[in-house]
C-alpha cells in the first residue's frame, strides 16, 4: 500500500506528526511547569526559577493538612474499589452467561451512568443524599462514586467473562459445586487478571473523579483532587509554589497507580471498553 508514496502523501504524514508532536510537547511542558514551579524559590518573568528548594512540600503538607486528606482519599477510593468489585463482578457474570427477558433494559441501565456526565446527575444525586443520613459524609462520597464505577466494572468484565469456556463451570457443577464455591474456587482464580485490570482502572478514575466528590463531600470528606481545586480556587491566599507542590503530590499518587494499571491493561481501555482484548 505504501510503496508509491508521492510528495503530497509524505507532506501530509509529516503534517500529521507535527500536530501530534506539538500537542505532546505542550502537554509535557504544562506538566513540567507545575513540577518546576513546585521546587522554585522565586519564579517571576524568567525562563527558569531563580533557585530551587523543597520547602514548599513541607509547607503544603502542613497548610493543606495533606496527611489527613490522603488518609480520607485512600479510605474513599479503597471502599469504592472494593464495593464496585463486589457489586460489579457478579453482575457481569450474570450478564455474560445468561439470556433473560429484559436483559437489554438492564444493559441500558448500566450504560446510562457512563454516558451521562457526572455534573448532570450529580446535582439531583447530591440533593437526595443530603436528605439521607449520608449527606456530606464519607459514605455519601463513596455512594456517589459507585454510580459510574459499578457500570464501568461490568462493561469491562462482561467481555472478559465471555471468553472463558463455560464447560469449565459445567464441570465444576457436575462435581457438585454450588454458585458460591464455583465463584470462590473456579471463577475468581480465572478472572483475577480481568478483575485486577478493572479495579485498577476504577482506582485511577476515582482518585481523579472531581465532580461527584466535589458535589457530595463535606469538610471532613474531601479527597485530594477536591482539596486541590479549593486551593487553586482561592489562589492568592497561599503561595503558588505551595499549591503546585500539592499538585505534584496529587500527580504522583495518580501516576503511580496509572503505571501499575498499565502493566495489566492497554491504555485505550481507560477510554474505551475492552473489546480488543485478544488483539
Amino acid at each position, binding site marked *: *500500500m505504501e510503496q508509491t508514496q508521492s510528495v503530497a502523501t509524505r507532506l501530509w504524514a509529516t503534517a*500529521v*506528526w507535527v*500536530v*501530534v508532536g506539538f500537542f*505532546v510537547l*505542550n*502537554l509535557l511542558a*504544562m*506538566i513540567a*511547569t*507545575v513540577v518546576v*514551579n513546585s521546587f522554585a524559590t522565586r519564579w*517571576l*518573568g524568567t*525562563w527558569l526559577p531563580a533557585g530551587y528548594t523543597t520547602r514548599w512540600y513541607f509547607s503544603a503538607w502542613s497548610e493543606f493538612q495533606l496527611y489527613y486528606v490522603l488518609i480520607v482519599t485512600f479510605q474513599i477510593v479503597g471502599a469504592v474499589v472494593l464495593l464496585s468489585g463486589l*457489586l460489579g463482578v*457478579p*453482575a457481569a457474570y*450474570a*450478564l455474560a452467561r*445468561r439470556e*433473560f*427477558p429484559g436483559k437489554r433494559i438492564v444493559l441500558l*441501565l*448500566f450504560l446510562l*451512568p457512563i*454516558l*451521562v*456526565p*457526572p*455534573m*448532570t*446527575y450529580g*446535582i*439531583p*444525586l447530591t*440533593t*437526595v443524599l443530603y436528605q439521607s443520613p449520608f449527606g456530606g459524609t464519607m459514605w455519601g462520597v463513596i455512594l456517589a462514586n459507585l454510580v459510574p464505577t*459499578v457500570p464501568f466494572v461490568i462493561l469491562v468484565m462482561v467481555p472478559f467473562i465471555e471468553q472463558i469456556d463455560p464447560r469449565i463451570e459445567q464441570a465444576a457443577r457436575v462435581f457438585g459445586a454450588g*454458585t458460591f464455591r464455583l465463584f470462590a474456587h473456579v471463577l475468581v482464580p480465572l478472572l483475577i487478571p480481568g478483575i485486577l485490570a478493572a479495579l485498577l482502572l476504577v482506582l485511577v478514575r476515582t482518585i*481523579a*473523579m*472531581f*465532580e461527584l466528590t466535589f458535589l457530595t463531600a463535606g469538610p471532613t470528606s474531601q479527597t485530594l483532587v477536591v482539596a*486541590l*481545586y479549593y486551593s*487553586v*480556587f482561592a489562589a492568592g491566599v497561599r503561595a503558588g509554589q505551595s499549591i503546585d507542590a500539592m499538585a505534584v503530590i*496529587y*500527580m504522583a499518587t495518580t*501516576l503511580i497507580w496509572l503505571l501499575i494499571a498499565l502493566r495489566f491493561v*492497554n*491504555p*485505550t481501555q*481507560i*477510554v*474505551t471498553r475492552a*473489546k*480488543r482484548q485478544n488483539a
Partner: protein
Amino acid sequence: MSMASAEISPTVVDRVPLRIRLANRGLDGVTLLVVPAALCVVLLFVYPFLYGLFLSFNPREGSLFANYAKFFADAFLYETIAKTLWLALPVTLLNILISVPIAMRVRLIRRQKLLTTILILPITLGTVLVAEGLLNYLGPQGWLNRTLIFVSLIDSPIRLVHNYWGVFLSLVITGFPFTFLLTLSYITGIDPSLEQAAATLGANARQRFARLFLPLLASGLAITFCLSFVQAFSVFPSAVLLGAPAGSTRVISIAAYEAAFEQYDYSLASAIAMIMAAVQLVVVVVVLTGRGFLYRGATTGGKG
C-alpha cells in the same frame, strides 16, 4: 438442556416445577447476581434523576413551571446554554477533525503504546490539574507566551487565561486524547483487507478514505461526537479556574452549582440540571439522526 418441547400440552407444563420453568427462560440463581448492582444503579442514579425531575416541578414559590419560567426569563441563566454550546461544539468538532487524520496515521504504526500512554495522561490527571498547569503555562509569563515572543511571532503576551480561550484550550487538552482514543479504536476495528481490496481495485488514498473509511466510520464518529460533546458540555472546574466564571465562560454547570450551593435552591438547581440533560439529549439525537441522512447512500455498497 432444551426443554422447548415441554409446552406441547398444558398437563406437561403443570408438572414442570416453577424453578425449572424460570430457569428455562434464563432466570435462576446466577441471573439474580445482577440484582445488587442493578439496585445500586436504580437507587443512586435512576431514582435521584426522577426525584430531580419531580423536584424541578415543585419550585420554592410559584406554579408548576416556575423554575423553568425563571430560567428562560433571566438572561443571566438562559445565556449559559448558548455560552456552553459556544464552547462545547467548536471544541468537539476540532477534536474530531484532528483525531481522524491522526488516527488514520497511527493505526499504521506498530508501537502505539508510547503515544497512547502519553495521551492518557491528561485524562488520568483530570481537569483540575490541567487547569492548574495551564494557569502557569498559558499565563503572561508562562513558557508558551515566552516562546512565542522569543521566536518573534508576537510582540507582547497574548491573554490566554481567565477568558474563553483558557477553557477552550483546557477542553482540547483533556478532550482530544479522549476523542482520539475512541476514534482509533473504531478505525482499527475496520478489517484491513477491505482497504487492501480497494487499493487493488485502484482507489487512491483519498478515495479509500472517502468511499470506504468514512461510510464505515460514520456511526462510530457520530457516537464519538456525542460522547465528547456531552463531556465538554458539562465542563465545570476549568470554566471556573481558567475562565471568566462570571462572564464569557459562565457555563450551565456553574449556574446549576450556584443555585444548589450558593442559593440553596435545590429545586431550581434540579431544573437547571434537567435543562442541561435536555440540551445534551437534543444534540445527541440531532447527531444520531443526522448521520442517517448523510451517509445512507454510501454505506449500501460496503457489504455486498
